[in-house]
């Protein structure tokens, strides 16, 4: 029995591509006898601008941050990361471009004739206050611009930030209290203590923990989980104002959420709010010793992609797996196997020595 086939679709539909010879779709056009030369490489488009009084020429599409760094100027950042779309929310990287308000250098592009001041009084004041406001509300012990390495402390000193100006810290929130914050409402404070985001650590799976007392809401994990890397969308910023927090839908535990445990959020978290459970437990037991650790770069053994792994090893055990942001293969991203599937490496018979 032969089925009636639908009439063959005519593509393109007649009349759509006006001005184009319809034959082009069926007959390739005749080759030109002499192949034209490749077009000349376009001149790099440069703009002239002034950074801290210094005239410079920089590529047109550069961010102000990159242009300043190329001049050797150190600008602190928290929410910016080379592998993610700049969100421009922490406001630590602000510079003065002569406008009424300051400009976030991480997301703003350079422009012809622009004058940038990276360390004037207005800028220093804003950075000092941003650091004070953050430090008075968030646990910044481990925070650093890129990795949770505590290096933010140097900037606190550089800008003379004193978070105690806002008074003693208020008591930590009860479990679930911050997750129940309703948009547009809060308990009216008495001012005696400075409210913080302190709350119990969320430990709901074997692989990683979420310590939102350390969360500065830089949006990096949300970006890494979403369009910038993983496209899983397990987390989003929920609530608003000081009640804003990173959350799964209805604060579901991670294993009931869409989380695929790729751990790419851990790889971008600058404050240690997201942490390997192995690292967290060692820190809790006061057995996390960075001076006794080695870092080994290797290739993931699982599939053929060949992702670069960066193993943190302590006492001859893998305690954390990262991937370098500048790896051409991964840009810092891994899957659940490469990130967490390392137990087999250290599943040795009882008493056996490594290498035996």
């Amino acid at each position: 029995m032969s089925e009636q086939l639908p009439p063959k679709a005519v593509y393109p539909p007649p009349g759509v591509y006006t001005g184009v010879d319809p034959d082009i779709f069926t007959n390739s056009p005749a080759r030109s006898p002499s192949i034209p030369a490749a077009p000349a490489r376009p001149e790099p488009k440069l703009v002239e601008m002034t950074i801290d009084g210094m005239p410079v020429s920089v590529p047109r599409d550069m961010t102000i941050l990159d242009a300043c760094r190329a001049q050797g100027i150190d600008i602190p950042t928290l929410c910016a990361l080379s592998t993610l779309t700049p969100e421009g929310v922490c406001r630590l990287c602000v510079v003065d471009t002569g406008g009424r308000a300051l400009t976030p250098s991480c997301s703003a592009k350079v422009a012809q004739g622009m004058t940038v001041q990276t360390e004037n009084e207005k800028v220093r004041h804003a950075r000092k206050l941003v650091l004070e406001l953050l430090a008075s509300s968030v646990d910044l012990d481990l925070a650093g611009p890129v990795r949770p390495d505590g290096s933010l402390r140097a900037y606190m000193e550089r800008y003379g930030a004193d978070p105690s100006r806002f008074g003693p810290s208020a008591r930590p929130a009860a479990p679930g209290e911050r997750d129940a914050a309703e948009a547009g409402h809060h308990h009216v404070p008495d001012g005696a203590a400075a409210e913080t985001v302190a709350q119990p650590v969320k430990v709901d799976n074997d692989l990683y923990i979420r310590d939102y007392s350390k969360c500065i809401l830089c949006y990096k994990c949300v970006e890494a989980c979403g369009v910038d890397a993983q496209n899983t969308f397990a987390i989003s910023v929920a609530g608003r104002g000081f009640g804003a927090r990173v959350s799964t839908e209805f604060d579901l535990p991670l294993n009931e959420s869409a989380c695929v445990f790729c751990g790419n959020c851990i790889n971008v978290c600058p404050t240690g709010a997201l942490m390997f459970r192995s690292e967290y437990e060692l820190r809790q037991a006061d057995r996390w010793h960075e001076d006794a650790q080695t870092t080994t770069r290797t290739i993931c053994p699982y599939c053929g992609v060949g992702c670069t792994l960066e193993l943190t090893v302590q006492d001859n055990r893998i305690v954390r797996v990262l991937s370098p942001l500048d790896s051409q293969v991964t840009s810092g991203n891994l899957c659940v196997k490469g990130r967490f599937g390392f137990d087999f490496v250290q599943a040795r018979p009882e008493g056996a020595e490594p290498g035996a």
Partner: protein
Amino acid sequence: MDLRIADIAASPAERGAIDSYLDPRIGPARGGWDGGERNIAADGRIARGGHEARSHRDLLLPTLHAVQDRVGWISPGAVAHIARRLTVAPAEIFGVASFYALLSVTEQPPAAVHVCDDMACRLAGSEQVIEGLERELGPAGHPKPGEQRTWHRSPCLGQCERGPAALFTIAGDPPVRVSTGPLTARQILTRLDDGLKGRDDLEAFEGPAGTAPSPERLAQLRRFAPQAGQPVLRILSRVGRVDPTSLTDYLANGGYRALGEAIAAGPERVIEEVITAEVLGRGGAAFPAGKKWAAARATQSWPKNIVCNADEAEPGTFKDRLILEEDPFALVEAMTVAAFAVGAELGFVYLRGEYPLAEARMQNAIDQARARGLLGDDVMNAGFAFDIEIRRGGGAYICGEGTAIYESIEGKRGEPRNKAARSTTAGLFQKPTVLNNVETLVNTLSIVLEGGEVYKTLGTSGSTGHKLFSVSGHVNRPGVYEVEFGITLRDLIELAGGVTGDKRVKAVNIGGAAGAFVGPDKLHMPLTYEAAEEEGVTIGAGAVVVFDEDTDVLDILRRIAEFFRDESCGQCVPCRVGTVRQEELLARLIARHPQGTVEDELALLDDLGAAMRDASICGLGQTANDAISTGIRIPGVLR
């Protein structure tokens, strides 16, 4: 996008609400993939999604409203169903729903009342109302077991002339949404009960009875538009004289003459006239409207959008409400003129969720205009297409901000964008967009009719035309006043009947929470953009709240600090944490427990203010300290 959606079923009511909103717009669900009946045989061979599905993201907020209206909260089941229908991740839907104060992500009883405790209502005794409700219904948002009613505090509801005001939301099919005042706790409780019994006469309390013009109606209207019916009015000329629900009546009173003129003159000429008129944006930013139109017209990208900012949430401001409720056809016409001038096809009215009567009147106006060919594929048979959609805000002041409004319409969290591109280049949906305030748009009608030169003769050289001021607080006749630019603050207060009880003025708030306070030494100040700038204040959207000599202004400042903390979107650090620290600081001053001396606290307040002003992303954070830092320095405020 491969979504993982929890296997929780939406209730029939939730499904009904979601599907009856979405089906007419995107068609019914076609299988298990997009929220319909699961059919293993078919679903296993077809995957739906991709760009087509994701392009409906802008329907997310209205869909959430549909659920909230029907069942009173957004449950996990509802989120799962919406996620399938719109191909949006549940976490993102939760992120959006939890952003808006009028949407609830925890179970709530069907009947809720949102009681305004902002500046004007505070003076009118909102705290007594709240005490009464708390006694009867328990703490805000936490009803007693089995209770069908609950209450919430609310920022300004835009009913400042009739405080204490409240917004009733009673979930059901159909839902009841009414905003009115003044009310006592007893009246509120009765009306909640009435609403639960399905008595729709709750709506009758809302505005002046009926819609047809009559002496009685005019008298009632004068309660909030005291000048209604006076011949000097230009913006409010039809208020009280024309039935706001009748297009026929509008047409008989000069309606659609401006659009006719505009079509005859051509788009370039219309823009020229608006530029000549030098009309500045009335929403607060005072940007020249003509320049905006010209820039949007010049951008080579289509389709273009007109967005009317009707998210009038600035505390103390209620002038747009008057236009929306009493002359909605004028706004429809003005948006059509703007669309014709810039070549836009899509119009959105982003209307604050606290204005149910305005929404009903606007929807009626749009529907009637469409039925008569004044909106649609061929407007007035003039060969251009334009249509308008209302998008209801969810109770978020930030969504009145120039880019947060686009994010909100696009179905995202209402977070302002880091200003990279101008609206007129890449605004709503990254397309050229003209964003105008209600009052600005309505002004353009008389510009088209009389020409920019004539318009320019009104007002002062820096502030042309007439301006609406929302006057409230301690004045005898609070309401919306239309005056020519140049009137002094003192004369405006006199126009509003003077200070109640013949008391002296202690302070006046100009421009709302984002504005500033002035003392009695500034009453001579002309209310113009240029004079305000000289005095270091802002006209903003034209809120004027008067406080007499006996007012505890410090308490008002604390309420403003509370407001900014609640309304900050939370994106950037200076605003998210700065607004918290600012409120704590004021609490210490009120409790007379400063850290160090009062001067130390004031210095810290200024430090906070400078960082918020310089480093915040948007206007909310940049102005969140202005009212407080100006108010606290008025003599007698900080005793």
